[in-house]
């Protein structure tokens, strides 16, 4: 379950404190960065980090960098950003009570998006637990329903194995966050370090073993290929599981080999190169019109590592109405048949499943060129578009200009709101793990700390926090963290003077009553804020004519840079499938061509295949 440890740990048999053991296990797990904030109940372990780093002064690469945020929520999202960008387990460490409760949001966020992080929380001493002690919070109870797993270390002898096991659980199967609550007296306890050993979880280990061995049988592949043979209009729907399962390369081969176009969920963006001609970008509530039309038209929907979230499926009974067959590959058995019942399914790793099908399908031939032609037509006819003549700066235009600079190769982090959806729609993404966004929880304030975490994982890559003014306010304190550690994150705030996404719903469904969402009278000066936090590049842009050159100078600035772009506050996100509606009811706005019902060239077979 844990990193393989063939040779004896050099410190095995040595006496040390619990705190030192924690750090030794982190080192063993390859942790190079810890995000966190100290305090009474975690002091011993912070001290152990300090001493560990002094001992490894000679070899900086063995040291563990400590990144201190403004708020523990920031630390959590930094760890998550690190994990999302790199695929490695992100680590954050906080004290008890308020620090632990500040960490609930990033833990839940990581659970909802299947991100492997480990949180180490200090806790009051064992003798004080349950006594309403100073800075005591019921971490086990609060975190349990939010995390993949929570440990409260009751026996100091178990501490070492617990930390190792936490990493194993975080990264295995469907990844997720693991919390370790460590009472202060356990950190101060002294015992013998073993250098190996994990806690046993029989059922879980068996299930993980079964998953690892779950290869597709030739008959099962044949069944799949048979469905593919029978279909005329197959479509792949790729989700975050393709990315976390490291299956993007195989998905690309698969799509090319069989000539099957691909739509992705928000979490699946980057699993295929969005500039590829078989890529249709994102589906769902704010999916591209052509992706959603393709979902309506397809007769075989192959879902991989995705789960028909309500923002994807809309009205479930009407989702993919012409799909005669549905296939579903997922590592999580609980997702199969949860929303849609399927014709063919496989529980296991996406990568192996794709490899197996490609292997069995070596000589498979079926000409989908008519369908591909149709897809090409959809992409052309229903291309994303906006008011290009507008005097005001249009958010879409900002992204198009950025694409010319980044060439689809940047790591883009976002807040939550309209800007997030524009980012998902308009940015080009050549690689997996390059859109970091709070998909399932939709947590405003995610973008900046996530960008800091991603930059720590990849110091030399271009990391952009593409944020909204509302979301930016949520974790504004992390501006200072960016300059403190001299991280060259490029922060761009699309300022539409408020909570644009909510305003869009208020415009549509609440008679334009902008309750609580209009911030036009606020006195915030983002540029001064950034300057005060040490940004040497902090600029506000109003003038459309200067957009390109400003973006160029902003991106090429060495070091942290902050750019506020005043955009058209009326700009909306289109297309939009209203909440609980079917794709038929998709609104495309004034600039994207929608199609009339007759234009859906394929006959309705009207065979809904939904479960509950």
């Amino acid at each position, binding site marked *: 379950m844990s990193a393989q440890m063939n040779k004896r740990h050099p410190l095995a048999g040595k006496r040390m404190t619990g705190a030192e053991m924690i750090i030794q296990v982190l080192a063993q797990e390859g942790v190079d960065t810890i995000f966190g904030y100290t305090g009474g109940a975690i002091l011993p372990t912070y001290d152990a980090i300090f001493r560990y780093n002094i001992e490894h002064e000679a070899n900086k690469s063995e040291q563990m960098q400590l990144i201190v945020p403004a708020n523990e929520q920031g630390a959590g999202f930094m760890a998550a950003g690190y994990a999302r960008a790199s695929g490695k387990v992100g680590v954050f460490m906080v004290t008890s009570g308020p620090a632990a409760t500040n960490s609930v949001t990033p833990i839940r966020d990581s659970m909802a998006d299947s991100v492997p992080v480990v949180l180490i929380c200090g806790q009051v001493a064992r003798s004080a637990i349950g006594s309403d002690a100073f800075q005591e919070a019921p971490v*086990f*109870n609060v975190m*349990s*329903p939010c995390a*993949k*797993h*929570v440990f*409260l270390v*009751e026996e100091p002898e178990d501490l070492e194995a617990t930390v190792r096991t936490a990493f194993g*659980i975080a990264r295995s*199967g*469907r990844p997720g966050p693991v919390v370790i609550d460590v009472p202060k007296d356990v950190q101060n306890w002294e015992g013998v370090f073993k250098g190996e050993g994990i806690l046993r*979880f*029989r*059922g*879980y280990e068996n*299930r993980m073993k079964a998953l690892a061995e779950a290869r597709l049988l030739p008959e099962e592949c044949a069944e799949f290929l048979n469905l593919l043979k029978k279909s005329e209009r197959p479509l792949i729907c790729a989700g975050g599981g393709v990315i976390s399962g490291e299956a993007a390369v195989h998905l690309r081969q698969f799509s090319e080999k069989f000539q099957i176009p691909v739509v992705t969920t928000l979490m699946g963006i980057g699993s295929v190169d969005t500039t590829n001609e078989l890529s249709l970008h994102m589906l769902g509530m704010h999916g591209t019109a052509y992706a959603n039309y393709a979902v309506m038209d397809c007769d075989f929907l192959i879902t991989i590592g995705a789960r028909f979230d309500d923002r994807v499926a809309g009205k479930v009974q009407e989702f993919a109405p012409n799909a005669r067959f549905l296939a579903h590959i997922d590592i*999580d*058995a*609980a997702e199969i048949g*949860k929303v849609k019942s399927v014709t063919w399914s496989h*529980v296991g790793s996406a990568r192996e499943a794709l490899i197996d099908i490609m292997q069995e399908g070596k000589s498979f031939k079926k000409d989908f060129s008519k369908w591909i032609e149709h897809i090409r037509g959809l992409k052309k006819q229903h291309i994303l578009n906006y008011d290009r003549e507008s005097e005001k700066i249009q958010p879409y235009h900002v992204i198009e200009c950025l694409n010319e600079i980044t060439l689809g190769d940047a790591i883009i982090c976002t807040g939550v709101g309209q800007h997030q959806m524009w980012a998902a729609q308009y940015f080009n993404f050549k690689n997996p793990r390059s859109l970091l966004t709070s998909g399932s929880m939709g947590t405003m304030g995610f973008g900046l700390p996530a960008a800091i975490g991603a930059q720590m994982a990849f110091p030399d890559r271009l990391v952009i926090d593409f944020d909204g003014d509302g979301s930016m306010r949520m974790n504004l304190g992390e501006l200072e963290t960016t300059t403190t550690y001299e991280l060259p994150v490029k922060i761009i705030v699309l300022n539409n003077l408020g909570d644009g996404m909510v305003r869009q719903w208020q415009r549509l469904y609440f008679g334009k009553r902008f309750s609580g969402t209009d911030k036009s009278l606020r006195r915030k000066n983002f540029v001064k804020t950034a300057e005060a936090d040490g940004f040497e590049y902090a600029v506000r842009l109003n003038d459309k004519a200067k957009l390109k050159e400003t973006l160029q100078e902003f991106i090429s600035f060495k070091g942290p840079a902050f750019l506020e772009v005043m955009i058209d506050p009326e700009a909306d996100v289109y297309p939009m499938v209203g909440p609980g509606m079917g794709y038929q009811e998709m609104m495309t706005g004034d600039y994207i061509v929608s199609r009339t019902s007759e234009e859906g060239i394929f006959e309705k077979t009207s065979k809904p295949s939904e*479960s*509950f």
Partner: protein
Amino acid sequence: MTDSSFQDPRSNNTQNTRTLSILVENRFGVLSRIAGLFSARGYNIESLTVAGSSDPGLSCITMVVRCEALLAQQILKQVNKLPNTVEAVDLTDTNCVERELVLVRVHAPEEKRTTLLTEAEIFRARVVTATPENYVFEVTGDSGKVEAFLDVVRPYGIDEMVRTGKVALHRALGAKTSGN
């Protein structure tokens, strides 16, 4: 979604209750985590028993929940994902025996004692203790039997009652249907 065809006559199942058997590692907090998966969806647990199993490291949770079969399957799948879960199954429509034990204190005035005892005999209910006013009965059986007994003694006047909640076991090895 669930219709009467889901009911197994042997289980004496009143509508839409599911008997779930969950084998877990005997560790801190496991029960609350599992119970939480039900409460998070607004499902009330009708009865719950937790005790050791044939394996010293493992506990067996038997839970009766009022919900539809498909939903129970869904929740069991979630339960089956918890690291501490060894196995989670729905026993409702399977070949299993189930028992519950009830202690009930019934009004037993002198003149009614004979009939009360005769009726109790039908259910093999035992008198475990008595006072001049009351009998305390112990009865064991599946839900049908227990309910029938309670219906019979109710007219005499039930003072107080405790029930263990249901436990269930497969009649034969390998008869389980898994939560997956």
